[in-house]
């Protein structure tokens, strides 16, 4: 990996989350360093998506702390998280099906738009300038992800693989500091996975974006991540560089399986 991995920018301490009587996460602690690619792996139901939801403010943990760039937060709401520089994709695609690809990506930049609705109605000065400015930025993302040919297509009509790519685009359009990806390669064929890998690596390489990634494909995880966290039944059972984790007996027993 070419870039310099920096200091810890996201520190999660003793996070516990329950829904009614069900404990989704128990006392989880790990950190994420700037510019790294951090994978979260584990069997289904281990709490990986819940973990991501906690980081990004969709769920609020009953216990624990989130420290982002030195600031202590018990929890954030989604709006604060977005403003702080978190962007994410979802396991089941959460695109706005009624809008075109371009509009979906432009929505990703919503927080950066300052004009109010009356200026929009009049399509005057600041509103128009802003729209064109952000359009330029979004076109850069479109270029990067090679989706120019479908920019005006309503998202609902696109094949699954492209939808996933558009979702990544929407997250990138926000120019995030930390990108949270929830199974970005689920359901893709080999070619699509390779493309997606390339994009993720490029984002990390060229833009320096820190990436936290949930993924089931072990090949991908071992290949592209700098460090890995392993969850099982809501508890952390492994944490370290891919090679370490691969050989951790607990992880093997719970998830990876041994070679016979």
């Amino acid at each position, binding site marked *: 990996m070419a870039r310099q991995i920096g200091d810890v920018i996201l520190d999660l301490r003793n996070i516990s989350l329950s829904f009614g009587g069900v404990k989704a996460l128990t006392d989880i602690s790990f950190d994420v360093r700037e510019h790294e690619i951090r994978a979260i792996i584990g069997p289904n139901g281990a709490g990986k*998506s819940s973990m991501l*939801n906690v980081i990004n403010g*969709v769920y609020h943990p009953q216990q624990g702390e989130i420290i982002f760039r030195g600031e202590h937060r018990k929890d954030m709401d989604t709006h604060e998280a977005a403003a702080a520089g978190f962007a994410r994709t*979802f396991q*089941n695609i*959460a695109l706005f099906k009624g809008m075109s690809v371009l509009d979906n990506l432009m929505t990703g930049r919503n927080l950066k738009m300052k004009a109010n609705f009356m200026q929009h109605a009049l399509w005057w000065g600041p509103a128009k300038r802003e729209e064109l400015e952000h359009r330029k930025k979004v076109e850069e993302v479109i270029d990067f992800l090679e989706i120019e040919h479908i920019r005006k297509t309503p998202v609902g009509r696109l094949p699954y693989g492209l939808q996933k790519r558009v979702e990544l685009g929407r997250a990138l359009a926000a120019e995030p500091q930390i990108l949270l990806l929830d199974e970005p390669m689920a359901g893709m064929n080999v070619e699509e996975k390779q493309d997606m890998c390339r994009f993720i690596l490029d984002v990390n390489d060229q833009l320096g974006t820190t990436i936290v990634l949930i993924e089931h494909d072990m090949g991908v995880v071992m290949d592209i991540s700098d460090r890995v966290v392993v969850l099982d039944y809501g508890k952390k059972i492994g944490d370290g560089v891919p090679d370490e984790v691969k050989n951790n007996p607990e992880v093997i027993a719970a998830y990876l399986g041994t070679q016979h």
Partner: protein
Amino acid sequence: MQFFLEVLIGGLLSGVMYSLVALGFVLIFKASGVFNFAQGAMVYFAALSLVGCMGMGAPLWLAFILAFVIMTLLGIATEKFVLRKMVNQAPIALFMATIGLSFFIEGLAPLLWGNEVRALDIGLVDEPIPWILDNFNMVVSSFDLTAAGLALGLVALLALFFQYTRVGRALRAVADDHQAALSIGIPLQHIWALVWAVAGFVALVAGMLWGSRNGVQFALTFTALKALPVLILGGFTSVPGAIVGGLIIGASEKLAEIYIPPVMAGWFGGNFGGIEGWFPYVMALLFLLVRPEGLFGEKHIDRV
């Protein structure tokens, strides 16, 4: 105090009748996930069919059976020609389709049966029960009481049906997940036909009771609209909820109608009747703010 009890009891009794209408909604929602806005129109159509058949010379029991057959056919036609074609669409679209359906039925009914107001005589009389009048000096209509008894009986029967019979379980399975139900061999078409038949039956009983109380006329459809606040209070998927919701709405709207206007006339002068028209809805609104899923409904969880 007696007056208060009178109004309260009157309200509770009419509330049971609201529950009956709400029940039709619950049944269809439970089985197909569709909120059938046309239920009110169906009550009206059922009542008109009943009265129409009687007008053609049939005795009550025969007219009832004929009307039931008509309602079942109507339901099956609805399912086949409208709902089945909209399987993939959002619930809101289905809801709007049922609004269209209600208009269609509201036009069809008078076309077939004429639109004069008709009296429906089912042998119950709207008179104060002498025993209660003598002993407690309160006016409680014998009609209301009988009707309430009938309605409660029906509701209890249906609740048992859903909970304890095989068919009832199948209905609940279908409501939960059509695909899954299909995959375990539940015959979807038969189930839906059954559901609409039961909903039609309920609409018929409701139409019969309301119709004989107030006359069979177009205003029946508005009565049925009142079932919506009942559902909100009770939860869309709960049969007992429909009863409890109905009782609360019936009682509170009558009490509000009696006690609020004088107070407002005191403040503002003038006449403030007609509170019944909006009070249930505002109550439902306030209730929704506190408990969106109703008293007995299921909490809706959005998975991300």
